[in-house]
């Protein structure tokens, strides 16, 4: 089933424990090039932790992460390079408080990708316009509304032109109209070959945008499959229960 040639990211036996609190349990999971994977699951089931472990923001307690077949070792240089290619949009945005919106989106391209200032600006503007934040380039993060921050965070990640993007609830603060627009952007990016892992609570979004859906429960992957499979014919009882509210709508 897995086309090893095209596997961009692979997670093997990943475990994460905080103190004596086991948050992720022996997760195996792989992402192929061009896939858009939605990760769904209850609050506290470990979705954010999974993304953070993939991006090495948390050091996994056990297991390994492979990127293009190469295990990611805990070497600062290597990790930085890896992170530049595997972007992340945080649930809490984490915009740089000391920079204006434009600079927030330029700094990565400029300092990490070593692009020229004008190139970086070009890039930043492209994505800021794409998420409808072109007008706000001179604002500081604390002057933005929740949805505006979220869109800047998305633009910032995109401006790095990553290979894979990890989204942690990228539409939680967005209104339906905006969700629609972001969905368009994501579809377009998927068409351009960007691989994405999206943690989301919006089932419609998961259903419409993804090529595969992963359902997490209490630190394990309870079920995964195509959107039709998961939303149409969930196998596990937990999945059924979790989706009941959505499917009954």
């Amino acid at each position: 089933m897995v086309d090893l040639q095209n596997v961009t990211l692979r997670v093997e036996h990943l475990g994460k424990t905080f103190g004596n609190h086991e948050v992720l349990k022996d997760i195996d999971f792989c992402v192929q090039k061009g896939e858009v994977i939605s990760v769904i699951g209850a609050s506290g089931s470990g979705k954010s932790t999974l993304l953070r472990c993939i991006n090495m923001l948390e050091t996994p307690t056990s297991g390994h992460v492979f990127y293009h077949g190469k295990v990611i070792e805990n070497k600062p240089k290597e990790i930085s390079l890896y992170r530049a290619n595997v972007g992340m949009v945080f649930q809490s945005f984490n915009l740089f408080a000391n920079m204006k919106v434009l600079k927030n989106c330029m700094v990565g391209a400029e300092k990490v990708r070593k692009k020229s200032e004008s190139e970086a600006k070009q890039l930043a503007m492209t994505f800021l316009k794409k998420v409808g934040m072109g007008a706000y380039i001179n604002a500081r993060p604390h002057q933005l509304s929740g949805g505006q921050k979220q869109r800047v965070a998305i633009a910032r990640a995109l401006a790095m032109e990553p290979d894979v993007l990890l989204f942690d609830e990228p539409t939680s603060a967005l209104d339906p109209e905006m969700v629609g627009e972001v969905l368009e952007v994501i579809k377009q990016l998927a068409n351009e070959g960007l691989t994405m892992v999206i943690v989301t609570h919006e089932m419609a979004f998961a259903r419409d945008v993804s090529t595969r859906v992963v359902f997490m429960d209490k630190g394990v992957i309870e079920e995964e499959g195509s959107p039709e499979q998961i939303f149409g014919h969930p196998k596990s009882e937990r999945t059924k229960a979790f989706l009941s509210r959505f499917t009954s709508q």
Partner: protein
Amino acid sequence: MSSIPESFFGWVALIFNEYGGMFLRGTGATLFIAALGTIFGCLIGFVVGIIQGTPIEKGTHFGKKFLIKCSQIFVSIYVEIFRGTPMMVQAMVIYYGSMQVLGWNMVPIYAGVLILSLNTGAYMSESVRGGIVSIDLGQTEGAKAIGMTHFQTMIYVILPQAFRNLIPQIGNGFVSAIKDTSVLNVISVTELYFMGRTACGTYFRYFEVFFIISLIYLMLTFVTSRLLRILERKLDGDNNYDLIHDADLGEI
């Protein structure tokens, strides 16, 4: 000038008349040393803060690990020694020690700048450590997530934010520096306080002399704190921002 003044302000006038020029020159030396000392001290403090905060990750290359560890031990010793010993002793050792052992004949005022910088740097590095801790962890994560190295994260994201919160400390540092220059008298720097003591020794009018000296100090520190408040407000940025109109967007 021959008659003995009767009142407090009579004495003040007499002393100011006699020593005013000296006091002003002393003020110049004090300001010169304190300003340079604070600037270099802050630089040292930030560099030490960065070095102390550099994480040694498991995967780091052995040579680099060793280098980081060594420089961390080195700066820790530096901070402990310069925070932990009186500046006057440091001045004696550096100034006379370098002459006696190495034959270096330092110019007192530059030696003073050096000593004050090292001293301020040691204190400042502790403040910087506190300033870095107080920045929200999310900022570090945001920076790491776009592939910044630890060093870049510090330079572009953390320290600019810490710096703003550290301005009151820098102000404190400068005010201390202005007053700490007084111990540099042991290496023949003739700054304001030294001038004051000279004037005291002649007339034995401590309150009158130190009234003048204190006024000068007060002026210096007052101006400094106001300037730093302005800097704070400037760094906080404009409350306002301009929306870019769609029409203008194309140009950017």
